[in-house]
């Protein structure tokens, strides 16, 4: 946008915002309103001064041409309020814009009664807009303005530019604060004395001009003048004070000496008798000087509380300091405050490359904290992103990528070592071990493979237990992550995984273990059988199949487990294997022992019939019979 296009853009933005403001109860929720405010903020740099007359806005004498209806409506509204100049002097907040509009939305009489839009804005603490309104009297003046004294008219005319008026007063007095005060106070009364009786608008204007000019005096002169008005009970001196908004009084209060402060407090105390008046309503009441006495107190209605605080503060600057020091931040919170800012950063950063950079900073922070064994800090850093995320959803993949970066074997190794430190004992609350554990839980799912590799190489008992426990928890949520690694060609890795899967009870997990019973490595097959156990419905079939395994340990384990199952089915399967020619002799001996340990009748029957065999051929059969007899004898005493 070029500099010459700016006034149009400002007027259009104001128009758009005004339209939204007129249509929606909560304009700030409307993107169009927010965009317009943003534009005004951007345009505020040096303050764009727009002039206004019946034909619309102009800038440096050139009419501002726009074809937006909203802009035109806004110009009309301003004109209705006799606005002759509007400037954006600082970046306005949405609230500032709403306050400006709220003023314009009121009817003209209300805003003039309260001293005009600009005065209202200042009272609301809005400093981003400057609104110049033509004096009411100059408009009214054409028809029925009373015949005014020249001095009064001069002041009223000057009211349009309070700063210049104040400057003129200062110049006239010589600038020395006491002289300024004398002249200011004297001129105020002198002008009021010259008012024609019944000229309420004139009175209003004079008071307002002096009040506004007051704010352009230097601080010493302000304090001096303010004291002068406080000292007096005279009705117009009170009227002057009544123009001050609560926060303005509060601001002046601590700078007064203790006597002045006492006077102000006195004033405020009387003023608060009247409960619900607002200081800006007072100008209207000026029309009726009799009512003043009872109503002027209203001015400070909301002030007393603050004044109370500030009195104490001002009487003793030590107490003021104490108040400030009360607001000192807690150094223990600094890190948390910084994390909040980091989260804020994630929320506002909408440029992809910069977001990625911030993610890299984050990876660095978590990793560095882990390497420094500051697991508490690492956890806080980690959670600053992952807990209640502030980043936009479409950045998820960047965050995932960064998490994967963090969850590398080197970092995990550090954490596992710390988390296992405490060994058997439960990690204490708030301890680094607890943080390390939570870090692992947070990072684990991103790092299953790395954890599995760690487990494969790990020999420490505590660390192994920790890793198995952690992986099982992960497997419970996401068995596939573990199951995928069952095809690892290192048998001990697979065996570890079976141990992990034992802790979970999902269908995927058990199916995967069943598959592992066919693993080429017997040690894996063995572990798989152990993991599966004997309680499920497929156990008999599975173990029977294992009777034929090439590996003796597997066969023996299967026979032993079958015996331990002790069901009729199991015994039948054992008996069948006993009768099977393909069954090796050494296995048959084991089967006899297994049957003996079974507690059901078919097992006992089978043993008994074996023991009673009369004609046995061959030493092997004989030894089987002997074994059966021995087993039965052992059972007898019970």
């Amino acid at each position, binding site marked *: 946008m070029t500099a010459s296009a700016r006034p149009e853009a400002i007027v259009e933005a104001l128009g758009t915002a005004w339209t939204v403001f007129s249509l929606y109860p909560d304009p700030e929720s409307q993107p169009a309103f927010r965009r317009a405010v943003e534009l005004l903020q951007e345009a505020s740099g040096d303050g764009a001064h727009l002039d206004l007359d019946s034909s619309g806005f102009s800038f440096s004498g050139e009419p501002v041409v726009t074809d937006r209806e909203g802009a035109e409506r806004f110009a009309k509204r301003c004109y209705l309020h006799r606005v002759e100049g509007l400037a954006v002097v600082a970046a306005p907040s949405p609230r500032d814009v709403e306050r400006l509009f709220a003023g314009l939305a009121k009817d003209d009489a209300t805003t003039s009664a309260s001293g005009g839009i600009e005065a209202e804005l200042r009272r609301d*603490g809005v*400093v981003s807009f400057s609104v110049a309104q033509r004096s009411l009297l100059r408009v009214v003046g054409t028809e029925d303005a009373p015949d005014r004294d020249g001095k009064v008219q001069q002041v009223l005319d000057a009211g349009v530019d309070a700063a210049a008026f104040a400057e003129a007063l200062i110049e006239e007095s010589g*600038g020395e*604060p006491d002289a300024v005060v004398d002249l200011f106070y004297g001129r105020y009364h002198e002008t009021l004395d010259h008012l024609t009786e019944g000229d309420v608008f004139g009175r209003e204007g004079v008071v307002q001009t002096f009040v506004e000019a007051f704010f352009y005096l230097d601080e010493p002169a302000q304090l001096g003048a303010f004291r002068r008005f406080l000292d007096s009970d005279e009705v117009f001196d009170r009227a002057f004070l009544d123009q001050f908004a609560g926060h303005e009084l509060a601001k002046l209060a601590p700078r007064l000496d203790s006597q002045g402060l006492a006077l102000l407090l006195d004033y405020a105390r009387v003023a608060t008798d009247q409960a619900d008046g607002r200081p800006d309503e007072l100008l209207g009441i000026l029309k009726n000087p009799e009512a003043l006495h009872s109503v002027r107190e209203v001015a400070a209605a909301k002030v007393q509380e603050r004044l109370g605080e500030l009195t104490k503060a001002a009487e003793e600057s030590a107490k003021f300091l104490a108040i400030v020091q009360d607001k*000192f931040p807690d150094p223990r919170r600094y890190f948390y405050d*910084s994390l*909040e800012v*980091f989260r804020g950063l994630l929320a506002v950063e909408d440029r992809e490359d910069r977001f990625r950079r911030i993610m890299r900073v984050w990876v*660095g922070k978590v990793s560095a904290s882990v390497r420094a064994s500051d697991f508490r800090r690492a956890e806080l850093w980690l959670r600053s992103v992952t807990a209640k995320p502030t980043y936009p959803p479409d950045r998820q993949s960047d965050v995932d990528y960064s998490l994967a970066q963090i969850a590398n074997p080197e970092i995990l190794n550090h954490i596992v070592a710390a988390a296992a430190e405490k060994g058997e004992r439960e990690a204490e609350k708030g301890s680094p071990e607890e943080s390390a554990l939570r870090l692992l839980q947070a990072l684990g799912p991103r790092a299953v493979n790395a954890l599995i590799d760690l487990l494969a190489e790990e020999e420490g008992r505590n660390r192994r237990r920790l890793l198995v426990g952690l992986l099982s928890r992960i497997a419970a949520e996401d068995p596939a992550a573990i199951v995928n690694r069952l095809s690892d060609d290192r048998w001990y890795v697979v065996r570890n995984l079976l141990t992990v899967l034992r802790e979970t009870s999902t269908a995927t997990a058990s199916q995967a273990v069943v598959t592992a019973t066919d693993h080429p490595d017997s040690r894996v097959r063995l572990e798989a059988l152990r993991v599966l156990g004997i309680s499920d419905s497929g156990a008999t079939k599975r173990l029977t199949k294992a009777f034929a395994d090439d590996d003796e340990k597997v066969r023996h384990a299967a026979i032993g487990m079958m015996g331990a199952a002790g069901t009729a089915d199991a015994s039948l399967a054992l008996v069948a294997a006993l009768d099977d020619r393909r069954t090796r002799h050494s296995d048959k001996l084991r089967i006899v022992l297994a049957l003996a340990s079974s507690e059901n009748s078919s097992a006992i029957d089978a043993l008994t019939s074996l023991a009673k065999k009369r004609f046995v051929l061959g030493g092997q059969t004989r030894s089987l019979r002997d074994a059966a007899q021995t087993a039965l004898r052992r059972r007898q005493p019970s």
Partner: protein
Amino acid sequence: MSDQHMRDFFNHLRSASRQMALYPEEHPALVEVVNKATDAANGLLVDASEKAITIIGDSLYLERTILPHASLEFNRLLRDMQARGVDSITLTSRVSRGDLHDLAAFLAATSGDVPAEGTIRLNERPYSRSDLETDTGFTGLRRSYARSLDVLRGVSLALDSEESFDLTGATWVVEQLVEQTLSQPAASVLLSTMKSHDEYTFYHSVNVCILAIALARMVGLPEEEIKLLAVGALLHDIGKVRVPIRTLQWPGRLDTEQWAEIKLHPQEGAAAILAAAAPGQEIAAVVAFEHHARFDRQGYPSMTYSRPAHFFSRLVSTADTYDALTTRRSYRRAETPNRALRVLLQGAGTLYDPDLVQTFIKMVGVYPVGSLLELDTGGIVMVTGNHQDAAELADVVLVRAPDGILLDEPEPTTLKDRIIVDQLTSDRAGVDPASLIERLELDG
């Protein structure tokens, strides 16, 4: 403006000396820069046939006048000179190109020969230490200021080239600044009136740092906290490194795009500081992120968390506004200190923390140290001591006589029976307050 001529001269001398080591004797680039340096040297001699440049400590003097800007800007060059044993350079009309070449080569240590023709003479020392240095107490302050600038230059360079940096340097200079500001508050505030057009952001940052330290001391923040705060203050605008230079130096109102670029500097700064911060130093990033957040949280960038802007951020924002307002920018005239205070007051409660504004005003007084006041006599005085209200205003020195002549030596004077008619910016008064430090009796 001798300071400006001096800076030209030193700028070219520095380039010439650097290029000595890179290029053969007759290389056009070298020839050109030596010519420029020669011209600049002769530019210094327009009003005298001979001029002496003296280096004492970290300060650079042209004749008897200290040159604060050049002293700071060429601090490194000064140290190089001292390392070569040079503590004064006397220029004689007209400086010859050959001698200038010899001088540059000597400083670059590519040659051991001093200038042959005698138009430049080394170590003649027409002025002694006692002639020039009225108070060595400020050398330390000035040195810290210079080092802070150096640190900022270094950090910016690193950031600009996306290299990593850490906060060691910043922490180190800040410790010195804190110590010196706490022991010499008035002198520090006076030094903080230092401005630079070319390096606006760096000077501004050091000024804000000094003012923030002074304000923090005023509210009674413990010294350890002040140091943390000061790192944040020093680096609060560091994110501007990522704002295009043409936007920063744009001589007018900014357009939408430019303004958007500017508005990114808090978050850029915070990200850079976080990356650089060791554990315990992160709070500086909070200051960078929030220094435009406003007291009512309505500023930029938008705050997604619920707490108010951090106390440190509010404090730095107060000092930031004050220094920014009192600086002349390409698109805006400087405000007088008094006017700047009024702007702060106007924004108290919405833009700025009212308690801190109040304390700030209490600290600097109605007319802060360094304020230039025009009196009814036509003379101009400079405020040299803190005071609570105008009636107490006592420590002033006359810097410009009623007849409009600038005084070589400021004269202590009184405001008794005098009326202050106006407050002037240093541009209007033609006086650089910071350059007067050594010639005043200040606290510390």
